[in-house]
């Protein structure tokens, strides 16, 4: 059902690793470690500034993949991965986009299920990849029926 989208990419979107957003995110995951939020700790660290928690890229805008219409209900987040070349630094600009990496279907205990793998990228201003992430979304039979109509 989503096979025809494999390989499609979103347009690149410029994001800023904002100090305020990091603080809000760190608080939301109960991790107000000073390396994320205290300027002096950041300055005295090997990074010379604050860094972002590893799951922070959840907040970035990755743009939209044309034609990929995912329902906002009934999806199950199955797996998530992050790969970093280095931690994200407060204040830096990150260019983000995502791509439909794969789609396949499997018979499970809850009927036929679809597995959609989205890969996301974050690049620095020089175009060098800082992080990649993959997200596997499980689309249940009930939702697939609605989509097929």
């Amino acid at each position: 059902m989503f096979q025809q989208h494999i390989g499609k990419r979103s347009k690149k979107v410029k994001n800023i690793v904002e100090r305020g957003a990091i603080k809000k995110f760190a608080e939301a995951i109960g991790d107000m470690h000073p390396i994320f939020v205290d300027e002096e700790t950041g300055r005295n660290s090997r990074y010379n500034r604050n860094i972002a928690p590893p799951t922070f890229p959840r907040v970035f805008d990755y743009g939209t993949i044309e034609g990929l219409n995912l329902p906002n209900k009934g999806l199950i987040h199955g797996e998530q991965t992050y790969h970093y070349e280095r931690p994200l630094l407060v204040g830096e600009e990150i260019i983000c986009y995502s791509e439909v990496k794969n789609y396949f279907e499997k018979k499970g205990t809850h009927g036929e299920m679809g597995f959609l793998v989205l890969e996301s990228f974050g690049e620095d201003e020089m175009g060098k990849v800082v992080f990649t992430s993959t997200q596997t979304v499980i689309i249940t039979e009930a939702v697939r029926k609605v989509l097929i109509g």
Partner: protein
Amino acid sequence: MIAIEKLHIGDELEDIQLEPVNRLNLIKYAGASGDYNPIHTIDSEAAKAGLPGIIAHGMWTMGNLAKLFSSYYQEGFIQDYTIRFKGMVFLNDVITLKAELTEKNGSISRFEVKAVNQNGNEVIKGDVFFNTYYD
């Protein structure tokens, strides 16, 4: 705190037990992450989805789990972090975060990481590959 470099296979980082999950935790995560799927915050929407109550965002639990490594920022960084979402987290659940060193290869220390609930069930599980700086 013992340096990650000094740990042996089978050693564990100190567990962290979270406060019982409350609605405000999930409202804050929705706001901070931009994930406003209502099954995480609104009872009637969770019920419509066939759930016995609102459930935590999987990414909330994954975000929490990474804090086992926050204090090691001078020694290295999380290079890879992979998670499978295995079970749901409900309000008032008491989640414990765990990490055990399973493999060492050059600068990379591999940890099996998981979050377990008060019944001992794994709700998320995966691996952290921690890359130690040598400079």
